[in-house]
């Protein structure tokens, strides 16, 4: 009586190995790209810092890469980014959070089935469309009540805020939907209203997810380029704490739009101005990277354990 044959099939084994390497290659590709980008940024930034001191770059309050007198102080650009971030946060965080509470706690299945796709459409609008919308509609509308420049931080940050609302609302809603229903029941059973259930049980229990959504959305706002390049202007301006409104009413220049200006401008050769592109890029990268680290930390540190 012959034994059954369980021996290796050469072609099957070979196919398995081939697929394994194909999948691994794809996974490696994105890692390699990231590493390459960081390296490029670093190498050119190091070149730049050989000519302009790091201290001057980080503490200088004037940014003028092409016009005499040349100055490479990044603070005005960080100021611009800060204005856009704060402005968009004031729009997106409350609206996004309240939208998430509505979707998760109040909306009927039918209402949710209309609202969620609508929010996804909002997330899918090309940012260049948002940019021109801010420039052509929001600025003129606000101009009727505020002394606005044609290019200004206010309409750009409102527009960026609207753009990131879906990020806040969808990630926050996921976190709230994950709160066990037994907690809501306990709260209702004690005579809580829907509002109390939402604010005293659901939101606190979902806080880590909500916080992550805030940070991810703000990272997105910091990196947003097209809207600010079109609507915010090209004027590097330091934050003036005695006149915070000035940053919103006038033309500003966040880091991203400064990079666009350098990249698309008529800069010749590989001079300091060109290299400054990479120094600003690296700064931007470090900021968003730190934000993502914070988000990861908060999500893992404050995640509620429900058993």
């Amino acid at each position, binding site marked *: 009586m012959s034994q059954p044959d369980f021996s290796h099939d050469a072609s099957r084994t070979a196919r398995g190995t081939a697929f394994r390497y194909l999948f691994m290659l794809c996974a490696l590709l994105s890692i390699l790209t990231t590493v390459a980008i960081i390296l490029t940024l670093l190498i050119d930034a190091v070149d730049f810092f050989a000519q302009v001191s790091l201290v001057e770059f980080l503490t200088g309050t004037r940014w003028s890469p092409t016009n005499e007198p040349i100055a490479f102080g990044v603070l005005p650009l960080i100021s611009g980014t800060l204005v856009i971030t704060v402005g968009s946060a004031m729009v997106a965080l409350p609206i996004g959070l309240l939208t998430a509470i509505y979707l998760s706690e109040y909306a*009927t299945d039918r209402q949710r089935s209309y609202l969620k796709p609508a929010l996804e459409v909002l997330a899918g609008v090309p940012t260049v469309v948002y940019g021109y919308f801010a420039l052509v509609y929001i600025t003129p509308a606000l101009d009727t009540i505020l002394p606005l420049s044609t290019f200004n931080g206010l309409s750009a940050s409102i527009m960026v805020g609207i753009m990131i609302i879906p990020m806040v609302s969808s990630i926050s809603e996921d976190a709230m939907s994950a709160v*066990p229903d*037994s*907690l809501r*029941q*306990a*709260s*209702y*059973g*004690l*005579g*809580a*209203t829907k*509002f*109390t259930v939402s604010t*005293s*049980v659901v939101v*606190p*229990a979902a806080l880590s997810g909500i916080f992550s959504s805030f940070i991810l959305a703000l990272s997105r706002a910091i990196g947003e380029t097209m809207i600010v390049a079109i609507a915010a202007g090209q004027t590097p301006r330091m934050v003036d704490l005695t006149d915070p409104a000035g940053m919103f009413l006038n033309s500003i220049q966040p880091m991203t739009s400064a990079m666009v200006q350098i990249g698309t401008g008529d800069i010749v050769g590989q001079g300091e101005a060109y290299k400054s592109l990479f120094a600003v890029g690296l700064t931007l990268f470090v900021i968003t990277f730190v934000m993502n680290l914070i988000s990861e930390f908060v999500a893992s540190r404050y995640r*509620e*354990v*429900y*058993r």
Partner: protein
Amino acid sequence: MTNEQMTSSETESTDDQPAPTPGTDGLVDSADAGAETATDRTLLEARDLDVYYGEEQALDSVDIEIPEKQVTAVIGPSGCGKSTFLRCINRMNDLVDAAHVEGELLFDGKNVYDDDVDPVALRRKIGMVFQSPNPFPKSIRDNVAYGLKVQGKDENVDEKVRTALERAALLEEVDGQLDSSGLDLSGGQQQRLCIARAIAPDPDVILMDEPASALDPVATSKIEDLIEDLAEEYTVVIVTHNMQQAARISDKTAVFLTGGELVEFDDTEKIFENPEHDRVEDYITGKFG
């Protein structure tokens, strides 16, 4: 005047206005409220109560009179509607979109399904303990204080928290660590925490939906002792699938059988020793269900 307390006029008093203090606000007449001994006064009464989930009928014309300050057990096989009945009493079924109730459910003579009844106000008179322990991800203190804060009973919160924990036979075990998370307790302790949370605002009724089904025998026995003590002050309605438990702790027993029908309701002794209906006897003796 007793019915006023449940009407929608109280909707506004969610967080800030103090609710009327127990004892004077009374769904219970003040004359009876002083009496500590078990009475046979009916506190809850269902009249021809039907419940539907969409097309499906979960309760079929239930009539029952639940006495004040006694333990009433509700038993029956899975899907017989016993939990549905419990959730009718504090209108938790309102949270299920498809649920639909017909007939009357009287709390101290007032139909809780009347249009002018606000379920939020109703639930403040009725504490509820669920099948598996569901403490909030908050400290022990905040868990017990939650109902007090929600109901605006803001004065002497710490004292009330301690009293409730003591009544729930948990204070000794958690004294000195009231600020640690309720989720760090064992399952049995968590369930007693949930009982403390339910009784802290001093309701008239406590509903328990299989409160010991997720617990081990030792923890179950503690909960059972506790339930008997609670009946000195509260009207307790407990759903259980465990017939021995019903026999041990209840004064009255209601037997629901398939189809949401209340087949028999009587003194627990009578039900377990000499039931009127053969179907109930078959169920009790394990021939069916």
